[in-house]
């Protein structure tokens, strides 16, 4: 019996997860770990043998895999030998073919960065699995699932939305940037005093002051404004 079904993108981000068994995997983000593990193994296989991994057999868990373009579909069964799960080969191929059609319909590739574009195809995939009687306990809701995944990923990398989106190295860069601009401002100010120029020229320091304080605030708040506007984070 297939107990878990998962779809992951080429970066190892789970797009779909379903478990028939009573498990806390969904709450604990175990599927995220599984996805990373399988992505790493798949990349190893591609680099070492230019091939695909079709089956991973562990003592208590077997993973059957199929590629849907750049994406991976995974069927998991526990407490059954690898001989049993390979019987699902035609089904997983059908599932992969279904996904290929869906991705084409929604014009999605493995390079797609905005994961919410996968909401509808994944919801449709859930319906497809229900038709195939592979999903009995229907609990999948794409937006909720996506939010859980991002929550786990954000936590694991140390990113906190609206609070912290840069690591120590990036903070130090912004501190240096801030001091450099404040120093520029000081040089302008010193020149005005030294050459007794018009005091109104002081307002030329507005720009270096702004950039200087921007650097310092980014350092103190552990927050990069450019990252925020570009919808990224740099936790290094």
């Amino acid at each position, binding site marked *: 019996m297939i107990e878990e079904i998962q779809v992951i993108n080429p970066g190892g981000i789970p797009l779909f997860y379903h478990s028939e068994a009573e498990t806390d995997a969904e709450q604990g983000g175990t599927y995220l770990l599984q996805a990373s593990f399988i992505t790493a193994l798949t*990349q190893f296989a591609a680099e070492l043998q230019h091939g695909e991994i079709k089956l991973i057999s562990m003592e208590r868990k077997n993973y059957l895999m199929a590629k849907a373009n750049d994406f991976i579909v995974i069927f998991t069964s526990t407490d059954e030998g690898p001989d049993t799960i390979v019987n699902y080969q035609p089904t997983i191929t059908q599932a992969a073919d279904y996904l290929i059609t869906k991705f084409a319909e929604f014009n999605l590739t493995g390079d797609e960065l905005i994961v919410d574009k996968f909401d509808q195809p994944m919801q449709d995939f859930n319906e497809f699995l229900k038709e195939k009687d592979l999903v009995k306990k229907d609990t999948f809701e794409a937006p909720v699932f996506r939010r859980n995944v991002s929550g786990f990923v954000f936590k694991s990398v140390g990113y906190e939305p609206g609070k912290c989106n840069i690591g120590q190295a990036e903070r130090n860069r912004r501190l240096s940037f801030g001091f450099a601009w404040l120093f520029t401002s000081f040089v302008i100010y010193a020149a005005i005093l030294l050459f007794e120029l018009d005091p109104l020229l002081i307002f030329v320091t507005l720009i270096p002051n702004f950039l200087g304080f921007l650097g310092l605030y980014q350092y103190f708040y552990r927050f990069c404004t450019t990252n925020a*506007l570009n919808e990224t984070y740099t936790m290094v």
Partner: protein
Amino acid sequence: MSENLITIPARYSQVVDEFAVKKDRRKAYQIFALSGVTAIAASVLLYLLTVNLLQ
């Protein structure tokens, strides 16, 4: 090979959550505003200081 493996964690940034994006934008604008106000205050202060010094 190693390059591909190293890029796995970095590609976690593919996960973009709309609530996170909104929170981040709000914070970015707050920092811009704070920097602007501080920069203006600093420049005005310097101006007043200079005017007094040059007198």
